[in-house]
């Protein structure tokens, strides 16, 4: 019983906490629209947002056609990666799980390379769909391999299958790219996770999948709490462990697949943010999921704004910024946090 009072006490603080994060996200989004590698006065930004006419000046084009879609994409992609990471860590009970080690990035990369070499497809707007299909195919493959055998897709088998599929697909990609300069050039743009060069068509393309996935993901809190107690206990509590796992993987496939397709592989957000959320919320996934969903886009957008401001008139890709900042952050969490309590 003391446990439940503990939880309610936490809940009384965690609810307002979510509201604070929401305000913080709004502030960061505002920052992302007003700051960038081009210096645009606040008044011009507000004027552009007010008129919604992007033809007035270059400043208004940049604001409305570059920064607004980029910011919205950063929000939905960040949220998707954060939640997908949290669900994966919960369902596989593996503190190192994120979309990358489940084969999503390598699957998407293989399909991008295939689209370029075999089908002659060019341009971010087209191969986003190949990347999406590839990410889902890889995750399905990982799950199918891990499901072989009587005990089903256990955490250990999922981790092993993920590593094996990632290695296999990565070597296929490397093999093709080594002999095809075109594929290498296209992949080079895609492979560094970035929010640059992605405009409204990509946002409107992936947003429906991401929003659907985000809504669905919030329903997983209770079952993930059950799984965290161990499979046998979860079964004892009346859960359909296999069915839960399959459903969770389906949601992760949509979320991480669409996010990766839109922006390329973005590291660390899916891995570190759920740990940060767990650090704040404790082990209750009903809180970890919404916290991850708000924390992740804050981190992603901040990193993106930083990359845009420090190198002007050039830009650093957000993937690079996250890599540089994410590593020490993760070390910090490992040092002070509760990594083992997944």
């Amino acid at each position, binding site marked *: 019983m003391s446990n439940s009072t503990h939880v309610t006490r936490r809940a009384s603080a965690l609810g307002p906490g979510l509201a604070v994060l929401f305000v913080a996200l709004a502030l960061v989004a505002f920052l992302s629209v007003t700051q960038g590698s*081009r210096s645009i006065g606040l008044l011009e930004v507000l004027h552009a947002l007010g008129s919604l006419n992007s033809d007035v000046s270059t400043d208004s084009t*940049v604001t409305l056609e570059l920064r607004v879609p980029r910011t919205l994409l950063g929000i939905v992609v960040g949220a998707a990666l954060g939640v997908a990471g949290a669900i994966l860590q919960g369902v596989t009970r593996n503190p190192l799980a994120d979309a990358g080690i489940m084969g999503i990035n390598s699957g998407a990369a293989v399909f991008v390379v295939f689209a370029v070499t075999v089908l002659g497809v060019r341009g971010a*707007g087209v191969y986003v769909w190949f990347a999406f299909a590839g990410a889902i195919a890889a995750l399905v493959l990982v799950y199918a391999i891990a499901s072989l055998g009587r005990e089903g897709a256990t955490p250990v088998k999922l981790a092993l299958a993920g590593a094996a599929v990632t290695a296999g697909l990565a070597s296929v990609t490397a093999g093709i790219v080594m002999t095809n300069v075109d594929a290498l050039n296209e992949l080079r*743009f895609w492979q560094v996770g970035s929010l640059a060069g992605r405009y409204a068509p990509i946002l409107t393309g992936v947003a429906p999948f991401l929003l659907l996935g985000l809504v669905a993901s919030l329903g997983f809190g209770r079952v993930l709490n059950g799984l965290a107690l161990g499979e046998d206990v979860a079964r004892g509590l009346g859960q359909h462990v296999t069915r839960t796992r399959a459903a969770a993987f389906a949601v992760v496939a949509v979320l991480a697949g669409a996010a990766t397709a839109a922006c390329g592989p973005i590291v660390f957000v899916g891995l570190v943010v759920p740990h940060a959320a767990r650090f704040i919320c404790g082990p209750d996934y009903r809180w970890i999921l919404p916290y991850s969903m708000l924390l992740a886009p804050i981190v992603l957008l901040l990193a993106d704004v930083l990359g845009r401001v420090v190198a*002007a008139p*050039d830009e650093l890709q957000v993937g690079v910024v996250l890599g540089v900042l994410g590593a020490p952050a993760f070390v910090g969490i490992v040092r002070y946090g509760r990594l083992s309590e997944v």
Partner: protein
Amino acid sequence: MSAWRPLLVVAALSVVLAGCGSASTSGTAQTAASAAPSGPWSFTDGSGKTVKADKTPTRIIAHAGEAAALMSFGIKPVGIYADESVTTDLNLKDLDLTGIEILGQEWGKIDVEKAAALRPDLIVGDWWPAEKAHSGFEEGVDEKSKKLAELAPVVGVAQGKSIVDLAEGYESLAKSLGADVAAPAIAANKKRFEDAVAAFKTAVAAKPGLTVAAMSPADDKLYVANPEYAPELLDLQSWGLKVINPDTPDPGFPYWENLSWENADKYQPDLILWDGRNYKPTSNAEWGEKQPTWFKIKAAKAGAVAAWPAYWLHTYGDFATELEKLTEAIKTADPDIGD
């Protein structure tokens, strides 16, 4: 042991070929000899080193553009290594390559076993002063491919500040190898080039206010070329064309200034020279569609774009052809589009 096997094969092959070669290759040797002085031969390489040989080399293996340069003076190499498919390489795509062994069609990969079978007596590749290496032997090239240098001496003209210097350098290399550069068919190329330069200068002088910028748009950024590292742009500047020097080139890779797409309109030239390696007549419209800020460059919006032969020229003939196209673009350009 297994590592030795390829080497043994090469050794065996070269012995066998050396044995029968004296008989079977005498035909080609003779045709070359009819034009070539028999030696001794020497050439001062781009690195400053003088390479000497008792006999004038006749079995030459050359890198793509360098091969094109030699062929334009009537010196046909026995083997070519290219950085991409010889059907798309801008230097090679219109040349008749029958009878020439293709030793590589990817950067950094040369089939040295095949090269050894050709028994070359000279390897020709541009000298890159910054990298202190010849084309084909730069950092990053397969160690196995670099063994090409063990087959014969390597020479090349220094890449640097001018395509004209480069073309002249290969002219003198070809001459030393026995080319008759005064032969009418060969001299015609140089004449055409000189005429093209004169016409270009006239067109430029007629539009004193015209500025151009050399650009290469990419999905995530817009690259603006730094003429300082683009010999053909320096040539154009020396003939009076105002090619914009970007003010903050990337310190790590000073060939370009990188602009985020937010800053695409930083430079407003009257004419855009578009990286010819990925330029099609439809490119301007496509990029206008794809990048919201591309048409914020007024010249792009007005369709004032022309192909820029970026970093590949080696011959008078190719340069003449490209100059003729640029001259046309300059004649039709409006010097008041940009700022």
